[in-house]
């Protein structure tokens, strides 16, 4: 790059630009590329090592770890729409559900191998999101949100009732012994007397292998999301978020950009949904309900919308709360505070009890309010503030890398 810098001239044919500017610029460009590399490496390491890292927190069991990954993927995808374009979809859970149903049908009709199931799930979700996105993106702002909500609620209500032949209603679509599974049958895999399990070319996809599959997909998804963030496409999406009018007066047709982003994020949702079916081959209609869509909104904002890591972090925190806090009861609290003197332990149990077990929603509600009130940029903003605190109050580092300081936290 640097050898042709000298030849670059101003578009208006003015004097050649000062070379130092370019040197600084290309250095910072390669630095940001290096930062991304470091980010993805650290991210991969943390994700793959999470069974060990999370053990002290009581979260190191396959089902929850899988959920962290799956909802991480879901939130990353949602963030591509909401974080980049600012369009708040309240119907993304529908695509997740569609991905799940499609994957389970693939298990039922074709094969227990996960590859076709995931592909089929992503494809179906992509098609649906293209369809719904095409209609909903005719409107912006809250009207867009309500349109997506309406479509998702319709999908949910229909899945719950008249579409039961496809969705098996409230019970959820399950595998049965008499499913055809034509590919498995053709390749001579005997139908056993008990239910078959999902596999990747013979490797069972439940438990830890299932987690590692999800983890690898999560890492790939994260990598793709970095690419999208850094691409001209991502820049256009951010431009739409910042000033959609200017975009059109700048010669950009925003709707295909939005639709592309919507479809990409719908496919992410479908991917997450099909992975849910891979790790647990049941697809329930509840995962399409508006509250499920609301959950991914919360995850994204909690972590930090528009940041790369935030949504994954938010998904992790919420799923952790849901699974761990709801399983606490008075007994566990007593043993947790048993190190305290009796009276104090009793007191601590009394004040914490309403927030755990069946009251875990209360914790969730309070947490959100605190985050939104004090950390509007989500957990990533919090992390950044703490980071700034430790690296001294701005000063040198800020001067060195103004880009990193002023861009949204990443």
């Amino acid at each position, binding site marked *: 790059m640097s050898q042709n810098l000298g030849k670059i001239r101003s578009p208006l044919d003015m004097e050649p630009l000062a070379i130092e500017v370019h040197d600084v610029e290309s250095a910072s460009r390669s630095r940001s590329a290096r930062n991304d590399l470091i980010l993805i490496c650290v991210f991969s390491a943390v994700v793959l090592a999470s069974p060990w890292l999370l053990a002290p927190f009581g979260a190191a069991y396959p089902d929850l770890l899988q959920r962290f990954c799956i909802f991480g993927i879901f939130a990353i995808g949602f963030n591509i729409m909401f974080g980049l374009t600012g369009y708040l979809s309240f119907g993304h859970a529908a695509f997740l559900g569609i991905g799940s149903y499609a994957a389970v049908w693939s298990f039922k009709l074709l094969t227990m191998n996960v590859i076709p199931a995931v592909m089929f799930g992503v494809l179906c979700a992509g098609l649906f999101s293209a369809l719904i996105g095409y209609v909903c993106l*005719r409107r*912006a*702002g809250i009207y867009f949100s*309500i*349109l997506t909500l309406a479509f998702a609620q319709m999908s949910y209500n229909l899945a719950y009732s008249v579409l039961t032949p496809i969705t098996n209603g409230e019970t959820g679509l399950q595998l049965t012994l008499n499913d055809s599974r034509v590919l498995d049958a053709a390749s001579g895999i005997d139908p056993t007397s008990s239910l078959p399990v999902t596999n990747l070319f013979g490797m069972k996809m439940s438990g830890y292998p299932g987690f590692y599959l999800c983890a690898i997909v999560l890492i790939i998804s994260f990598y793709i999301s970095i690419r999208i963030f850094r691409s001209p496409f991502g820049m256009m999406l951010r431009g739409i978020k910042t000033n959609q009018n200017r975009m059109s007066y700048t010669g950009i047709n925003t709707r295909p950009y939005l639709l592309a982003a919507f479809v990409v994020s719908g496919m992410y949702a479908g991917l997450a949904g099909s992975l849910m079916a891979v790790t647990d081959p049941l697809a329930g209609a509840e995962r399409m309900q508006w509250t499920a869509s609301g959950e991914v909104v919360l995850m994204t904002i909690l972590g930090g919308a528009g940041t790369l890591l935030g949504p994954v972090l938010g998904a992790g925190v919420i799923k952790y709360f849901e699974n761990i806090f709801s399983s606490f009861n008075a007994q566990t609290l007593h043993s947790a505070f048993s190190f305290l003197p009796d009276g104090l332990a009793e007191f601590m149990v009394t004040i914490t009890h309403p927030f755990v077990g069946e009251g875990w*929603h209360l914790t969730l509600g309070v947490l959100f309010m605190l985050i939104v009130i004090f950390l509007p940029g989500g957990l990533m903003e919090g992390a950044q503030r703490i980071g700034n605190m430790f690296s001294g109050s701005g000063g040198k580092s800020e001067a060195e890398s103004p880009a990193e300081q002023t861009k949204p936290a990443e």
Partner: protein
Amino acid sequence: MDAILLQILNGLDKGAAYALIALGLTLIFGTLGVVNFAHGALFMLGAFCAVTVGKLVNYQVVTLDPTRTTPWGTPVEIRTPIVQEWFGDFGAFMVEYSVPLSILFAIPIMLLIGVIMERGLIQFFYKRPHADQILVTFGLAIVIQEIIKAQFGANPIPQAAPDLVAGSADIGVLLGFDPGTVVYPYWRIIYLLFSALLIGCVFAFLQFTTYGMVVRAGMADRETVGLLGINIQQRFTVVFGLAAVVAGLAGVMYTPILPPDYHMGMDFLVLSFVVVVVGGMGSLPGAVAAGLLLGVLQSFASMNEVKNILPGIDQIIIYLVAVVILLVRPRGLMGRKGVMES
């Protein structure tokens, strides 16, 4: 014909509830520019005002009778309703009419809750993005809901309408139908009239008081009103309180129709949001019209004749209508340009 008439009544009834919640939502949005996801919770809190009053007037002193035991071997509890003990006939009257009486109780309580909410939380969010407002009020809604659940349990708590109006009226006779073909519960008729009255009061308040004038001006152009030097903050607080009272009273009066539980607010919230948007964000007549319209359509869609042709239509009709209206009329039935689009 009789079936259609009944369905219209059903629809208006349901629609009135949507309209009352939507009215407050759109009032808050139009004046304060805040998307209040906790509005359903206010409706629910209103309903629980009635539950509280019901509990208070039915308060019983429990004494143990050691001479008799329950099947599980503990002494039998003797419950004495003290309100009736103390006040005699008036006490009985209070028990009987606890739901209508709750209105008197709910007005100050809801006003107070509204003011506390606005002063304590909402006012810090006027300038924040809508997403933040949605999130913080959603969090608040969850917190309120969980507190109510912890206090009153998860099951619905039925509230009886006064015996005088517990039955149903044969309104068909008035209109020339055969007796017994168009009967409708008295309480639902009362609810409908009450809602109309409440909507009327809100409009009158906005039309004829100086507060209302400021509010209307504020809905038209918030910045200008700010420049007039009027104490806009105080007005905002009052508007919020008013919206809370309207939602609360809707909740109080709805209790004999639907036994309240902690989750009822969320159930109504989503639909009310659809109503607000279909009516047009920030449009009060739009909210009322859309509420009633969607209520009636929902009732019609539930008729067997319709369901036989379009199975499942009753489950999606509201959303379907919302989609169609938003595509045909971009800003809802009566929305103004430029609201909430950027």
